[in-house]
């Protein structure tokens, strides 16, 4: 075990995460890789919309100025960056990153790798015609029923194309819809030369990826266990995985930064967004999370070992986004005394007006923020002396005009409804188009031949 472990630092858990975190990871101590996860299910459709307006857009723009800041240190120290910031336009993202490298003064000293082949948008009709139904994994409906509303379709890719880019010498690897976990275990597979059927090692890498993929959620952020004892979250250290050739690893963080890495923080993150723990499916392996062994190895160090895996399925998962109607949410605040009674009365009046207008919605949801919006009926009856409550009414439906009209029915309640009401300074609620998520499976043999790893010189 004298071999130096490979240190893979997490720098971003979603598009919108702490912008300074990746800089702290680079400056706070030794690391070999920095992984940055920018994509959630809905992010791809937002990026698709941006690209339809501007062919050079459609990726996580924050990634470019970040790279400009850290490029000199990465090039000097050989820190390799792996990110799915490419969104629906990894080629343009890589070009912008290469330009950022030139501005940062590392011309001729770095290559940017680009992984493509995940985008099925242009192939959809061909695939449907060939009998790939892309049925919704939750409802079993075939995609044909919403084909005209599809906005984006991307396959979740695994480690292999990232490994190809790393093997080709990329200092920075930009991908589209790679799985969040692959951003961490691809560097492990590359560094240790794992075989495709090293199921246990790959499965251990998947666990490392799951721990890294939500940033500080593994190192003290959003940790419920004794949260008030966690030090210095203002400058929280994101997790770092120190990986060994046998697949085992230690979760840690830079010592000078805030947060905590403990059995409790790591367990909470392992369980985050968990389905059947024995069957955690990825493109490269099925990991069994019931085989994970954890051990605390001193302060801010948790060792993970014993993970078992098995061969993956013949399918890859496709993330499809489609337009599914409209929604709007309006709010008003009611003050003591009898705040909840006033808010309830206002909600009844609003419902009656919407009925009289003959507006039909698929769904109307009334919540009382400050009382039952998060725990519903478990919150019980509101206390009589509740100091204030926010009435929050949401509507959803296929008819934009009906939703639009709803947004004009909130303000009138201020002068025509129950008293001691305020909090309307934000103006009329905004109508939002709903772009919904359609998970599907596709035969991997129709995707894999299209995957490629290309390079842009800085």
């Amino acid at each position, binding site marked *: 075990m004298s071999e130096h472990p490979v240190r893979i630092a997490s720098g971003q858990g979603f598009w919108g995460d702490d912008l300074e975190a990746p800089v702290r990871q680079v400056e706070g101590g030794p690391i070999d890789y920095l992984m940055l996860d920018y994509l959630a299910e809905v992010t791809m459709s937002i990026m698709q919309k941006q690209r339809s307006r501007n062919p050079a857009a459609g990726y996580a723009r924050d990634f470019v100025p970040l790279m400009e800041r850290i490029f000199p240190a990465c090039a000097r120290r050989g820190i390799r960056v792996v990110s799915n910031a490419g969104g629906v336009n990894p080629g343009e993202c890589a070009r912008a990153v290469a330009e950022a490298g030139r501005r940062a003064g590392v011309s001729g000293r770095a290559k940017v790798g680009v992984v493509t082949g995940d985008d099925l948008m242009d192939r959809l009709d061909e695939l449907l015609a060939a009998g790939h139904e892309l049925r919704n994994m939750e409802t079993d409906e075939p995609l044909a029923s919403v084909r005209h509303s599809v906005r984006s379709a991307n396959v979740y890719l695994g480690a292999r194309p990232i490994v190809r880019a790393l093997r080709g010498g990329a200092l920075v690897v930009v991908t589209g819809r790679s799985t969040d976990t692959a951003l961490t275990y691809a560097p492990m597979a590359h560094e240790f030369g794992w075989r495709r059927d090293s199921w246990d090692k790959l499965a251990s890498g998947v666990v490392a990826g799951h721990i890294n993929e939500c940033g500080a959620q593994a190192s003290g952020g959003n940790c419920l266990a004794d949260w008030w004892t966690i030090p210095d979250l203002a400058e929280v250290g994101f997790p770092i995985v120190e990986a060994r050739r046998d697949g085992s690893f230690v979760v840690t963080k830079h010592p000078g930064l805030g947060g905590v890495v403990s059995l409790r923080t790591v367990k909470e993150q392992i369980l985050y967004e968990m389905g059947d723990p024995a069957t955690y499916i990825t493109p490269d392996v099925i990991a069994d999370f019931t085989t994970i062994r954890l051990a605390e190895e001193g302060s801010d160090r948790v060792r993970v070992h014993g993970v078992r895996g098995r061969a993956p399925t013949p399918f890859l998962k496709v993330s499809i986004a489609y337009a599914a109607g409209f929604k709007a949410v309006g709010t008003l605040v009611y003050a003591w005394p009898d705040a909840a009674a006033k808010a309830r009365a206002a909600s009844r009046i609003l419902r009656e007006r919407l009925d009289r207008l003959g507006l039909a919605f698929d769904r109307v*949801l009334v919540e009382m923020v400050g009382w039952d919006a998060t725990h519903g009926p478990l919150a019980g009856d509101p206390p009589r002396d509740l100091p204030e409550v926010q009435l929050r009414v949401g509507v959803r439906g296929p008819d934009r005009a009906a939703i639009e009209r709803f947004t004009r029915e909130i303000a009138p309640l201020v002068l025509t409804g129950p008293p001691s009401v305020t909090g309307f300074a934000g103006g009329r609620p905004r109508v939002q188009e709903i772009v919904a998520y359609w998970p599907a499976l596709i035969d991997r043999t129709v995707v894999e031949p299209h995957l490629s790893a290309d390079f842009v010189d800085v």
Partner: protein
Amino acid sequence: MATIPLLELAHARSGDKGNTANVGVIAYEPRDYPLIRDRVTADRVGEHFRGLIEGPVERFELENLHALNFLLHGALDGGGTVSLMTDAQGKVFSTALLRMEIEVPDEVAERVRGRGRVPAAVTGESP
């Protein structure tokens, strides 16, 4: 026997998968895991969330982590971007589950009393 909130025995984290919320429940002390496993059944959790979720509850055991994972189907009003809920991504189903009252031996209740809440010394409030 005494009745205590699950909050005093376990911590938890929740998240979403489409229209399903997941809640991972983790024993603070490994020795309390068997008690939690016996008391916090899928049926009890289904009852606990009646009116808040539309579908069934599935439970998975992770004895290696002294934890249980629950899938609450139909919990998120369609989930993701479709949902009108404040908690469209199921982030706080964790503490909603920890409200559950369970029966434990008196000595356990005594040992864990006040666990899971900010101590008065920290908030500066009188107890």
